Structures are given as C-alpha cells and as structure tokens.
C-alpha cells in the first residue's frame, strides 16, 4: 500500500517512505506496520484456509481417502493455530495500528520501534512452528488446545512452545503499545467517553491480552518443563494433574476468544452507524457492555471443561456465570438493531458484512447459550455442535468484521474505491458458503459426531458432504477477495477524504489515501 502522497503544507523534516524492501523491514510508521500485519494475516488466512479445505476434503465422505489420521490431526491443529494466531489476531492488530492513531488524532503509536519488533516477531514465530513440517515427527497434531499429557510426549513440541512464546511476546508488546498510546496520546478534548468505539474495543482487548498472554506463556513453559526437565505439573505419577493444564490453558483461552471478538464489536458499531446515517444507539452502554464482557470473561473458563469431573458446586458456578455473559452481549445486539431502526440505510459491501455479522454472530451466541447449560453440554461437549458454535462466532463473526473493516477503510488506506459489484459478489458467495459449511455441523454434532475425527460413522455422511461443498465455495470465494484488494491498491475510482456519506471520526478528516504522516499537529476535538 503506497502512501506516497506528501502533504506540501508541512515543513519537511520528514520525507516520504524509503524505497524498496528495507522500507518494510525497518519501518516505524503505524500505517506501514498496519499494512504489514494485514497482509501477514491475509496470507495466514489463505494458508489456514487451505488446511481447512484439506480437512473438509477428507471429511467429504466417510473413510480415509486422502490422508492418514496422523496427517489429519496435523491439519486440524495447524488450521486452528494459524487462523487464531496468524489470521484473526494479527488482522485486528493491523487494524489497530492503522486506525487508532488516526482515530485519536495522534501522529503514530507511542512506541514505534517496539511496534516494528512486534510485527517482525510473527514471521519468525511461524517460521519456527512451520519448520516442524520438515522434521521427523512432523507438525504438531495435538489440537490447537494441546492438552497434556498428549502434548507432553509429542514429537517436536519444543518448537511449538518456542513459537508460542514468541507470538505471545509480540502480542504483549503490541498491547502495551496500544494502551500507552490511547492513555497518553489522545488529541486535546478527546475524553475517554468521546473516544470512538473501535478504539475503546482495542483498549479493553489490550488489557485482556496483558492479563492472559503471560498465563499462556506459563502454561507452555510448564509443558516444556514436563516434557524435557522431568517436572510433573501435569503428570499424576509425580503428584501432578492433567486437569491443571486445562485450568491454566482455559484461564487464558476464554479471555482469548473475547480478545478475538471485541475489536469486531468496535468495527461493527462504526459501520452500522455510518451506513444507517444515524449515530450509534447507546454509546456509553456499548462501552459498559464491552467492559462487562471483558470482566466476566475471566470467571467462566471452566465451561470448556464440564466433563473433567469437577465438583457440582464448581459446575453450577461456571454455568451461571457463562449464562450471564449473554446479557451484555444481548444489549450490544439490541443497540445495533436500534441504530438501524429509523435510519436511512444503504447496503454497500461493508454494511452487508456488518449486518451479516450481527445476525450470524447472534446465531453463534445462541448455540453458545445452549452450550452453557451444563447437563445439555454433556451431550454437546467435544462434538461438532461445539465446532459449529465457534465457527459461527469466528468466521461470520470475527472474519466477516475484518472483511467489513477492510472494505470500509480500504479507500482511506489506498485512495481508491474498491469495485462495489465485485465486493457484493464476494459478500454473497461468502455468506452462502459460510452457512452451507457450518449450519449442518450443528446437526451432525447433535446426532453425536465427535470433533477431531478423521473418519466417521455412516449416519453423519450426508451433512458432512454438504458442509464440505460449502467449505469449498467459501474457500474459493476468498480468492475473489484477494483479487479485489490487490486491484484496489493499484486502481479504482478516486476516493474523497470523507469516503462515506455518514462516516464520522478523525480518520475521515485527512486525505484519501492518508498521508504517510498525519496529525503531526494534534487536532482540536470538541
């Protein structure tokens, strides 16, 4: 993404970006770094998606047609790790980098050099993780949740641990950067409650990351020690407990899934308000709802563990606490609907993705509420019902919000409008694809098909075939997205600074494409 347009009004003690490869290696510019993160995430999305297509190809029919179960488990594991740590999280960080300084009227992030390091650690981490493919024993095959003791004795687990440590360091540094930036560099007049919701969502997400990424680091360190240094954190033989692993992991894991959705909430609020040409309904309750969700996310982790044999008291507590999260989440959904109600609405591509997010994420929330009911969860746990739930909240949830954000802000980043007809085509193909893929998974899950199964009994065949067809439709449609984005970088109808009639916020007061340096002089906010 070139942002070569220079603003002639400024005194020139900074130049435009360097030319060539070194620019990208050494950049401390938040726009460049945002671009790096976004392209990295797109590449990861395509790679993780390729693994998903491998999984669905194998699951198209009962039986092992394409691969042995060892390979299958590797695909399942890598699909999860790449999509979460390479796809969704870096994409949101990329959006944070591009948008937070622009939206608060700051010239850049608080710590630009650490920002560069945060990004470049990611390819290193993934290099380490993917290098296990060339080693004996191969890629990790223990699921992205890597429960002990399966993972403790698995080949090449040390490389997995190192990769996670490095990704964690990247996230932690990024989050520190985000919080320090937001707390210190808002333009004069921008109180916290005047801050745009995307910035709020990232402020909260960053605190969650600070709190729980170190816990993940602790979990993988304990795993490494059990595997190589003779400790028994998770080994009953030495007085340890495999269930301890699950507690530590999910203490990280649950807030992690909120980390992956809160920025989506922020994005959705911006887009729905813009295309309804109406201010967001209940701005402050949206903030409070996000804070409540974040706080509650710390006390519900064991709903991932209802079948490990916890005492009744614990199971009741986690059931009730989990059900509670539905309330602030519901408030947000209602507020989006109330924003649309009596608006003046147009349905450009970002709006299509945002509305699809509201509807389909809510469906994912419904299956989540069902999962919260512990006695029913004894039937759902570790079946495709869970897989359907989390794919609904992650794919037409997080991923759609990222796509919405890309369409919405691409004109600001590149100075060109994307092709609206193609954008809509991409939307409809994705929308149909995603539902054909994941809705039938509710059925096979309820009928009893377990997850992480390379092969399955005959009664699950029909819906699995449908799901696989949907997956291929969805997967191939993303190539259209790639084409649309690349094309827009280089060509398209010129965008105005405002871009969207109805858009509000400091980013829409600068040129499109945004100049390489913006807000060297902070704007005054009323």
């Amino acid at each position: 993404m070139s942002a070569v347009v220079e603003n002639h009004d400024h005194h020139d003690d900074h130049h435009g970006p360097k030319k060539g490869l070194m620019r990208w290696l050494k950049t401390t510019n938040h726009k460049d770094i945002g671009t790096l993160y976004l392209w990295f995430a797109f590449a990861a999305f395509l790679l993780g998606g390729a693994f998903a297509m491998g999984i669905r190809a194998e699951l198209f029919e009962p039986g092992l047609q394409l691969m042995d179960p060892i390979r299958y488990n590797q695909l399942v594991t890598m699909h999860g790790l790449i999509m979460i740590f390479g796809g969704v999280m870096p994409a949101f960080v990329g959006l944070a980098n591009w948008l937070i300084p622009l939206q608060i009227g700051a010239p850049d992030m608080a710590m630009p050099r650490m920002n560069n390091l945060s990004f470049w650690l990611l390819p290193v981490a993934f290099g380490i993780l993917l290098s296990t493919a060339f080693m004996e024993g191969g890629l990790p095959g223990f699921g992205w949740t890597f429960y002990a003791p399966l993972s403790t004795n698995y080949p090449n687990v040390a490389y997995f641990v190192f990769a996670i440590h490095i990704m964690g360091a990247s996230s932690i540094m990024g989050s520190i950067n985000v919080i320090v930036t937001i707390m210190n560099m808002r333009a004069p007049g921008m109180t916290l409650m005047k801050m745009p919701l995307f910035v709020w969502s990232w402020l909260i997400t960053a605190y969650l990351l600070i709190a729980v990424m170190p816990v993940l680091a602790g979990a993988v360190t304990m795993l490494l020690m059990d595997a190589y240094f003779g400790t028994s954190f998770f080994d009953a033989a030495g007085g340890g407990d495999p269930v301890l692993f699950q507690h530590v992991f999910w203490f990280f894991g649950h807030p992690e899934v909120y980390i992956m959705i809160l920025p989506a909430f922020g994005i959705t609020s911006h887009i729905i308000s813009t295309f309804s040409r109406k201010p967001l309904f209940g701005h402050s309750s949206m903030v409070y709802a996000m804070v409540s969700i974040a706080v509650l996310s710390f006390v519900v982790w064991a709903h991932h563990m209802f079948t490990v044999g916890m005492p009744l008291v614990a199971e009741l507590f986690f059931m009730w606490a989990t059900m509670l999260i539905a309330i602030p989440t519901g408030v947000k959904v209602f507020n989006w609907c109330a924003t649309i109600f009596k608006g003046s609405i147009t349905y450009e591509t970002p709006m299509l993705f945002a509305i699809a997010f509201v509807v389909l994420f809510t469906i994912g929330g419904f299956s989540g509420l069902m999962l919260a009911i512990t006695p029913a969860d004894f039937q759902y746990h570790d079946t495709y019902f869970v897989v359907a739930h989390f794919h609904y909240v992650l794919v037409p949830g997080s991923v759609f919000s990222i796509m919405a954000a890309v369409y919405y802000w691409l004109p600001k980043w590149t100075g060109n409008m994307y092709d609206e007809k193609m954008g809509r085509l991409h939307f409809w193909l994705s929308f149909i694809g995603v539902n054909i893929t994941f809705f039938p998974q509710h059925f096979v899950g309820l009928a009893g098909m377990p997850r992480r199964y390379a092969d399955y009994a005959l009664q699950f065949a029909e819906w699995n075939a449908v799901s696989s067809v949907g997956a291929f439709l969805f997967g191939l449609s993303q190539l259209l997205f790639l084409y649309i984005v690349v094309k827009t970088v280089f060509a398209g109808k010129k965008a105005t600074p405002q871009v969207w009639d109805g858009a509000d916020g400091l980013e829409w007061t600068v040129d499109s494409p945004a100049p390489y340096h913006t807000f060297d002089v902070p704007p005054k906010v009323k």
Partner: protein
Amino acid sequence: MSNGPLKNKVFVSLLGAVTFMFFFSFMLVPLYNVFCEVTGLNGKIYGPSDFFKKNNETYERQVNIRFLSTVNGSAPVTFYPSETNLEVMTDKVSRTSYIATNNTNKKLTLSIVPSVSPGLAAENVKKIQCFCFSEQTLEPYETQEWPVRFYVDSELSENVNNVYLSYTLFEKEREEMLAVNHEH
C-alpha cells in the same frame, strides 16, 4: 516520549502487570492444590494423617469403601486390591492391602497415586500408612503385599455412603538385571 518509555507510568505499570500474570500462572499450581484439598476436586488426597487429631463429638456411621486399581502405561505389573470392598465405621482405623507382582525379569521402580471419588469425600479419607507415600521397588518376578491403614472421619458429608478409593500405578524406571538364576 522524549523521556523514554520507562519514565511513563502507564508503560511501567503494564510491564509490571505482564510480569505478575506470568508468575501468577505458576502460582496457579500451588493454588490449585490448596483449592483441591479444600474442595476435594478430582479426589486428590495428600500425605499421611495424624490419627489423634479429631473431634470429641463423633457421629458414628457405616460407610462402604470400594477399592480399585489401575496400572498406567500398560506397565508389566499385576496390581490389584486384596479385598474389593470394606464396610467401615467412621473414625475407626481399618487396614487393607494391595498386591503387586512384577511380571518381568527386570527391576521396577513404581509410584502409586491415589484418587478418591466422590471428590467431596477426598478430604475425609485419612491415610495413616500407605504405599502411595513413597516409591516402591519390585525385584524381578517379585510379589509384594502393600498395606494401607486409614480411617474415614465422621465429618464425611451425610450424602455420601459409598466411597471409591482408587490407586494408579506408574512405572518410573525399568532396570535390566544381569542374568541371574531364580529359586522359587
């Protein structure tokens, strides 16, 4: 940030938070153990008990204890309780034993771990003497009888009348012995 990030209060406090959370995850290990002891989660029970520490008010009742055994990792040891069931009175010390046979011509070092179900009962099953307190060694082909002396204290929840005490045997070491003739 002309004074450098380290002068910024927010930055320093965030660094502190990160460090704290990392060590917190390690604190989860002893915290988990304490929590387990208090609530009986996962039926973990620890160490020997002093028989003489008890209340004067005792409400005696009968409890059924069932003994289970599991050999982990398909270790080549035959391991089973000498009796499957015992009816015991609360606060009264009972004795039972487990029998273990080494089915190989190698010396085996073993560790045995107890588990109580329901979890509620874990804190009420007090062991005075148990082979699970230390590692055990079995010479090639050797059979040993391992005693357990325990009591169920009367604070056991009224809802529980049946308790399962399970031992899992883990092989820690397998040592090849030089060829020896065995007289049996």
